[in-house]
């Protein structure tokens, strides 16, 4: 009986060890391969191209609500409520107050981050000499209707919802 018990315990131990080994790889593989992330990336690309590749939105019928969750929009609204004491006076989606649409269009890159549902949007904001890329890390999730929306800006202290 002792031997059987030992074998059972050993089997579980080995099995669990293999699981922990395999899991990280399979998760990474899923993020890069699954269709969800591709759709999320497409949404982010559409969002940036629509609102930031030119001074005016490409499609004026589309609004921020089509791409950004209401919790993010509400938070931004509250941060900019007092005109005499703005908490943020920049656009958190570009970390700035102005941009060169042509530069953003040409340099826009979106990559999945290590964690599921997190993506990095990178671009050259003005396309100037020696300009470093601006990185916006966002959390993208599906809403109840199955539409991908930006749920937080991870690298913004006011909008990371932590």
């Amino acid at each position, binding site marked *: 009986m002792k031997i059987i018990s030992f074998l059972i315990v050993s089997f579980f131990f080995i099995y669990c060890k293999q699981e922990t080994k395999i899991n990280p790889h399979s998760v990474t593989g899923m993020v890069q391969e699954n269709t969800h992330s591709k759709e999320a990336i497409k949404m982010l690309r559409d969002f940036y191209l629509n609102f930031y590749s030119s001074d005016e939105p490409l499609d004026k019928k589309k609004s921020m609500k089509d791409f950004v969750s209401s919790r993010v929009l509400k938070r931004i609204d509250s941060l*900019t*409520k007092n005109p005499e004491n703005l908490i*943020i006076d920049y656009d958190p989606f570009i970390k700035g*107050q102005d941009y060169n649409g042509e530069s953003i269009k040409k340099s826009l890159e979106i990559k999945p981050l290590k964690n599921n549902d997190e993506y990095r949007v990178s671009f050259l904001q003005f396309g100037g*000499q020696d300009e470093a890329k601006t990185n916006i890390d966002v959390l993208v999730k599906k809403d109840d209707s199955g539409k991908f929306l930006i749920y937080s800006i991870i690298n913004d202290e006011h909008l990371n919802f932590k």
Partner: protein
Amino acid sequence: MGAITGNQNPIVGETNSYGINLFGALPFISSNASYEWYLFKKQKSGGWMDITKNGVPKKGMKVDYKFFEPVAGELFEIRVFEVVQGLLPSVEPSKKLFGKLEVTPASSRNAQIDKVVLFNRGKKDINRANYTDTLVAQAFCTGLFGKEIEFQLWEDDAAGKGHDAAVNKNNKIPHVFKATVNERGIAEAKILLSADEKIMRQVANKFLMKGDSDEGANHEYYVTATYLGKGEKASQINVLAANPDYQPKPKTDSPKFPATSTGKTPKQPDAKGKILDAYFADAGGGKLTKVQVGKKVQVKIKTSGMVGKHVQYKVWEYDLGSNDLVYESGKIKVVNDLILTGSFTISQGTFGKGIDFGSMDSDSGKQNYFLEVIPIDVSAESQKFGVNSDGLMEVEKVRSPTTVNPTPEKDDKKSDKKADCCIIDEEYFLKNYELEFPKKNKQGKLIPLSNSVKNSLRRMFRSISEYYSNEKRCCNKYHIAYLLATAKLETGHTFDPVEEANWLSANVRKKYFQEMYDPVLGKSDKRKKMAKDNENTKEGDGEKYYGRGYVQLTWKKNYRKMQEKFGVNLVDNRENALNHELAVKIMIYGSEKGVFTGRKLSDYITNNSKDYYNARRVINGVDQAAKIQGYAEKIEKCLKIKECNCKESSSKSKPQTKEKYNIEAAVNYINKNALAKSEGACAKYVRKAINAGGIANIFGHATEYYDTDKLVKYGFTKVGTDINSITLKKGDIAAFGSVKGHPYGHVAMWNGTQWVSDFKQKSFWVANQYSTDKKYAIYRWNN
């Protein structure tokens, strides 16, 4: 209480008179009264501070005041006290406030330099210096915020006070110092005397004050300042720099030029071996006293008791400060008492070695050479010949079909164009280079970077800027870091162009080049084929087209390519590749275009990624790649490249003319498009309003409108930094710098009644932190 009359908004830079209002105050004026004038300045705290010069009031019924640009827009108060003497000597005089007048100096309508000073900061006597000191030149300017002021140093030979331009016309120190006018209206340049010591001493000693027999114990310096070559103002008090060349009565038998050391131990005179004479000679052996660049010369050496021994000669360019070595021969066997050596060409490369400061150096047109003959295998002393004014050989640079100008673009009108691209902050670089690459002596003390390395680096920086200016494009900082790292390694840290395998003896070198690069004498079939593939087709090409310059330009093919690119005869006059300026251009062009190996710098280094290790493949596989990588990483930290103004140098984006900016159009735009509330897009909306006014190509975070001269560059004027002292005008722009919690700053436009950014603001301040820090400036378009 009486009253004071005078201009309450004096224009800065102008002298204004203020007087007692006799009419208004007549009943109070006492016959035995005098008046003392004090100046007070309003403090941020709200109080007044007495800023009367040295605490000594001006006296009289009428006095003058002059304000300078830094205080434009600030509030002052002139206070006059009436001092009434007691009727009896024993009675103390009474002093009471007679009147006061608030004054706010206004910016000048005309941009100008008001005053220039030169001094030795931190010294007990700020008007005295040594050549190891750093002088400070300051220009106090009006309406020139953000503009570049050029300082020119002069040695004063005019007698008495003042500077006589005619007398001092030859005393210009060939180095222009530049500084940008800060928000206080002051441009300050640091003049490191040690950096230019040689040329300064040379200039100073060359011309004397009328009636003087020598320059004396001191060199007197003053500085002039100009903006775009105009509005020259000079400092009034000279700085006296101790003249290191001053010797009250030099001993006639003291050696003026110490002999070159040729051995580890001092040689003893050798009775049997003597070098008696040497001079430059033509092909027939006739003595040469004058020659043009491009010509071949030989050297005639007269010896005694040295047959069978060897000598070497060096050609020096004569300078009063220190001499420049321009050529040195290989080992020469003495076959007779009188020998005529093989010829060498005084090429542009040779000539260039005698020039310290480009075309501004007095040596850039004409030089004087003398000889030093060094015995190799006897203990005779080396000797110098022709060092007096009669013996020197004059070498002249003339434009003729036989001469080659290594920088053809410099002689045409284009060369007058100011280099605007890739301007490296020289002082910042040198300061940080010493920190990144510290050299210590045995005691562990830091050894400062030598002047020759500093000068070589400065030359390189100017050539880099000139290259990109000619190309009309901006440089990549990381490319520059890598190329400088390459130059550092290839030149053994001297940053002077070098010849390949220069440490080998002439014969060994020749053999090495034949084996490596000759199509006939190559050491293997592979090397021979490689030689032919690279256009080294004839026997002898191997020893001709060996490595020269910063990246060892090798093979006839590459010499030809560079000749075609830069219009300089490199195929026939290969020494031109050693010209500092050309060597820099060859390095940049060859590396960026992939001329050397087919691989380009941009394959490894871009704005967003850099692989300093593999970038070596652009030059030579991965040979020394790690070492250069290390250098590049450090050099990158030393590099500060000023904002690229290449586009500004073309007419396209020069400051807009006044007619092209329409304030009304700008204000209309911002009024019409303002949002109901802030969307964090102030810079975009103000920028678009400026665009609507007629100025294009302006972008950036709001803080950049405050931190840089972005608006000034386009023709706006900074009118002040105190909102309470400025009468706002429609179209005025307020730019706020970055403050805690607001990293991108803020910018807004005054529409005549309120401030508008991306929304119509309720107040000037859009966040508490801005009102706390008060880091802002107001800009105005003046038609």
